[in-house]
């Protein structure tokens, strides 16, 4: 797999994590998230250990801490949600600096924040070490419905084509003196969106024709089959397995 589809999150580097087959990584992250989510929220130390695990994996993947932290910013909307919880959840109250906060709400906020952050961090590591093409192959390999994988790969292929078309339409509008302001602009923009939809639809028809002409009969042929050795599966399993141990301890202690 080559230089092709470096997306914004991907970070080129040589590391054992980059070298893992994509479906091993996807499975590992997925299981890790499930384990984290099923940990009791009161086991605060367990979440600390999970964070250590993430840091170790990020280290193995040669991802600098700053890069990881910056990418965690997509979490901000969650944080806002979590901050609200202590104020709105009914139940026992604790008083902090004269504010009445719900005890249940505080735990709920902690729950969302801790689990959300860990889940996002694991996903960021996955995305930083796997290019888009490989991600799709991995999903295909994990038997995700082939239609979904096809849709996703068409989005990658035609994203730029459609953005280009949008840009050309915008240039054409502005060349004829159109500036996007005021209420009237909305009707023009809506019409452009309609035209864009029709163009994309027609392109879809032509692409389908080209696919059928080359023997497409409903399912994508397997061109690249990613395979993993037992050793690679075991290496990828280290993350969810250690997490599982921590989780079980969290339930029993």
């Amino acid at each position, binding site marked *: 797999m*080559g230089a*092709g589809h470096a997306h914004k999150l991907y970070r080129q580097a040589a590391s054992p994590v980059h070298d893992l087959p994509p479906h091993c990584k996807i499975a590992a992250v997925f299981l890790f998230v499930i384990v984290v989510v099923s940990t009791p929220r009161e086991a605060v130390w367990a979440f600390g250990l999970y964070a250590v695990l993430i840091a170790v994996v990020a280290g193995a993947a040669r991802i600098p801490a700053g890069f990881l932290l910056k990418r965690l910013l997509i979490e901000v909307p969650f944080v806002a949600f979590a901050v609200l919880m202590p104020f709105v959840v009914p139940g026992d109250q604790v008083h902090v600096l004269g504010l009445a906060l719900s005890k249940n709400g505080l735990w709920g906020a902690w729950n969302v924040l801790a689990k959300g952050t860990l889940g996002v961090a694991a996903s960021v590591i996955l995305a930083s070490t796997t290019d888009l093409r490989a991600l799709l192959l991995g999903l295909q390999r994990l038997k995700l419905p082939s239609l979904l994988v096809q849709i996703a790969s068409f989005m*990658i*292929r035609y994203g730029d084509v459609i953005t280009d078309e949008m840009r050309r339409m915008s240039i054409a509008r502005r060349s004829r003196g159109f500036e996007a302001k005021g209420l009237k602009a909305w009707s023009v923009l809506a019409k452009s969106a309609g035209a864009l939809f029709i163009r994309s639809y027609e392109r879809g028809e*032509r692409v389908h*024709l*080209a696919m059928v002409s*080359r023997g497409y009969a409903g399912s994508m*042929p397997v061109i690249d089959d990613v395979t993993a050795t037992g050793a690679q599966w075991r290496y990828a399993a280290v993350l969810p397995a250690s997490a599982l141990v921590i989780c079980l301890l969290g339930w029993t202690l």
Partner: protein
Amino acid sequence: MTSSAAPASLEVSGLAFAYPDGHQALFGIDLTVGRGERVALLGPNGAGKTTLVLHLNGILTGGAGSVKVAGLPVEKRNLAEIRRRVGIVFQDPDDQLFMPTVREDVAFGPAASGMRGAELEARVHKALERVGMAEYADRPPHHLSFGQRRRVAVATVLAMEPEILVLDEPSSNLDPASRRELADILRALDVTVLMVTHDLPYALELCGRSVILSGGTIAADGKTADVLADEELMRTHRLELPFGFDPRAAAAKA
């Protein structure tokens, strides 16, 4: 056409077709293309060229008449084999190249017919080699120039090792250098070619024989040099040579 051991690459006889809205686009087409021949299909806009092309691999069916590819009739039960034998290169390479990388796109056709592994890899490499694009295998198509995309589009059908290569407007939107490179590639191929084009000098350069399709019927079929030199015929069918182009002189030079 005298009968020989190998059946003609393409035999169209009595083909007529009307679109569902009632618009009759083809009125009884007869056309035979021998193995290894390169034929240009000329005609004004709306003549029915694309409609005819879409009959060659059974995308459009249901009218009168028949189409045979290397002796095999285009019918529902043969469609998979027919689509392997007829390689259509559509006009816009962005429609033709729908996979994330060049390599996967070229592999699509053969993989759809069940090819895998090393054999598939070799087939892809050979097809890309034939159009001089082997070093671009891992690139996404949208990072290539238009001329390169057109060449890759040709490779995607060459990879199926078709009996006949059908090209819709292969020289459109190409700059002169890309146009010439594509001509060199097409000339070097040893497959039957049917080329839909408005580029008359291109037809003269590449195809010994030309067929004019006009108003859904075949209006002329002959040596390209003769067809292009017949001013009356050309005018009737809205075909215009570029300014200053003399088909007789050009043919004599070639």
